[in-house]
């Protein structure tokens, strides 16, 4: 069914992150390299082993939904609706019929706050206290459903779940819907709102979280010698993907072209990356092939770069395998944003598109001493970049890998 010659343009961006609620705001925060990690104040963290995260302050839904509709969404879907609505507004008036529009969202934990509230609350510890709204609010497709209803998107509306790679997979799969002719416009991204006691405790016991409680702002330090895990974050980011011809016909602002996407699996381990990042390397190569690009044509890699000891070493090995030793600049924005799980890949896709537009590589915050086991060119200060394609990686628990490539248009 693939329609020959269909190119996919990025025509809208929307974000809700601890680093800002507007792409420009996020971009400035990335350039400044200031971490958004702070002590958690929304619940008591005593005894959880970690007391900080990257949280969004003051989420106001008033401009987006009537109060009753907003109250029927978990925070995850609320963040998604805000970012998706902003992205659609940024894209301007679309001409595609509702049936030719699609939405693809990525989430890992779904409506987790709703889940915890009804499971842990109420008079019956063994059955919780679910109300009639608990199922539709906790279901993982709730963000796709809300965006579809709110914006009358009547083509495919889907939810993709590949843990920390969900946001990138959502964008890549939505890009395929447009490229293969199933839709003319697709709004795609990821959302996560999982800063809760049980998620924090679960990740901490999984031994993947930084426990630098005495200095939260220095805790998220991808590729740094002294990193000790990631910092949990929440957020959402969405992009509007559009058939390039359609976009040009309506004189839309085109930020970039989505030229490459690949999805691979490690088929190796529940949480650990495959040795030498084999699955990740295969994914990057496949994305280059999809885009018809050679490694030396990539301006920089926006890494998954979580700041866990295992991820960063495996990812660095994979990048070197594909690009040659220290041949391509590498950055991770998670030093600023923290790790927003399913939203991470979407936030980073927006960062990659903005880097193309601003022709600068944002720095990796908190990088003091590059881990000698990560033999890549990690960008520690803002660096100018030529107007060449940007690669963005995401890897999820379960061995799910996604790579996106955005090119100047």
């Amino acid at each position, binding site marked *: 069914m693939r329609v020959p010659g269909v190119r996919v343009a990025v025509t809208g961006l929307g974000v809700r992150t601890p680093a800002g609620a507007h792409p420009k705001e996020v971009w400035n925060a990335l350039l400044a390299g200031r971490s958004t990690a702070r002590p958690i104040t929304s619940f008591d963290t005593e005894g959880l082993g970690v007391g900080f995260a990257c949280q969004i302050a003051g989420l106001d839904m008033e401009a987006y939904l*009537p*109060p*009753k509709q907003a*109250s*029927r969404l978990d925070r995850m879907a609320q963040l998604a609706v805000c970012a998706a609505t902003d992205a659609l507004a940024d894209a301007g008036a679309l001409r595609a019929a509702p049936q030719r529009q699609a939405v693809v969202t990525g989430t890992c934990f779904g409506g987790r706050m709703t889940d915890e509230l009804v499971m842990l609350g109420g008079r019956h510890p063994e059955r919780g206290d679910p*109300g*009639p*709204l608990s199922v*539709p609010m906790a279901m993982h497709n709730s963000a796709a459903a809300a965006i579809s209803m709110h914006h009358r998107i009547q083509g495919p509306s889907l939810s993709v779940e590949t843990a920390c790679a969900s946001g990138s997979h959502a964008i890549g799969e939505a890009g395929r819907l447009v490229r293969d002719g199933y839709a003319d416009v697709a709004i795609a991204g990821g959302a996560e709102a999982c800063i809760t006691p049980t998620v924090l405790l679960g990740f901490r016991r999984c031994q993947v979280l930084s426990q630098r409680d005495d200095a939260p702002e220095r805790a998220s330090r991808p590729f740094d010698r002294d990193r000790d895990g990631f910092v949990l974050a929440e957020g959402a980011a969405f992009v509007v993907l559009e058939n390039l011809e359609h976009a040009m016909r309506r004189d839309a602002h085109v930020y970039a072209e989505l030229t490459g996407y690949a999805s691979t699996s490690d088929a190796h381990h529940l949480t650990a990356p495959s040795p030498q990042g084999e699955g990740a390397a295969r994914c990057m190569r496949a994305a280059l092939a999809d885009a018809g690009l050679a490694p030396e044509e990539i301006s920089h890699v926006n890494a998954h770069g979580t700041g866990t000891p295992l991820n960063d070493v495996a990812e660095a090995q994979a990048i070197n395998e594909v690009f040659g030793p220290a041949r391509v600049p590498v950055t991770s924005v998670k030093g600023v944003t923290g790790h927003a799980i399913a939203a991470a890949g979407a936030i980073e896709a927006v960062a990659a598109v903005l880097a193309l537009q601003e022709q600068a590589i944002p720095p990796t915050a908190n990088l003091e001493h590059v881990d000698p086991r990560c033999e890549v060119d990690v960008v520690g200060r803002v660096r100018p970049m030529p107007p060449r394609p940007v690669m963005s990686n995401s890897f999820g628990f379960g061995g799910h890998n996604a790579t996106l490539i955005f090119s100047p248009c």
Partner: protein
Amino acid sequence: MSEDDIATVVREHCVRILKVDPGRVTGDALLREDLEADSLDLAELHVALEDRWGPLPRETLADVRTVGDVIAKARLLLSGSV
């Protein structure tokens, strides 16, 4: 519980669940047409009344049209005549 108290409880739940101004929740206000209640809202109202007064038959709110109908149902149930 007095009849007035029952009416007050029902109205409070309607205001909270339907997120409308209390002034609109009058006895003859139509739940669906005037207050934009849908099936989920009525299910929430059902659970709220059960939380207060114990288990209710599934069809309790099946045929209510107005806020007054809900109040009348609640009074009937609490008087034990249903």
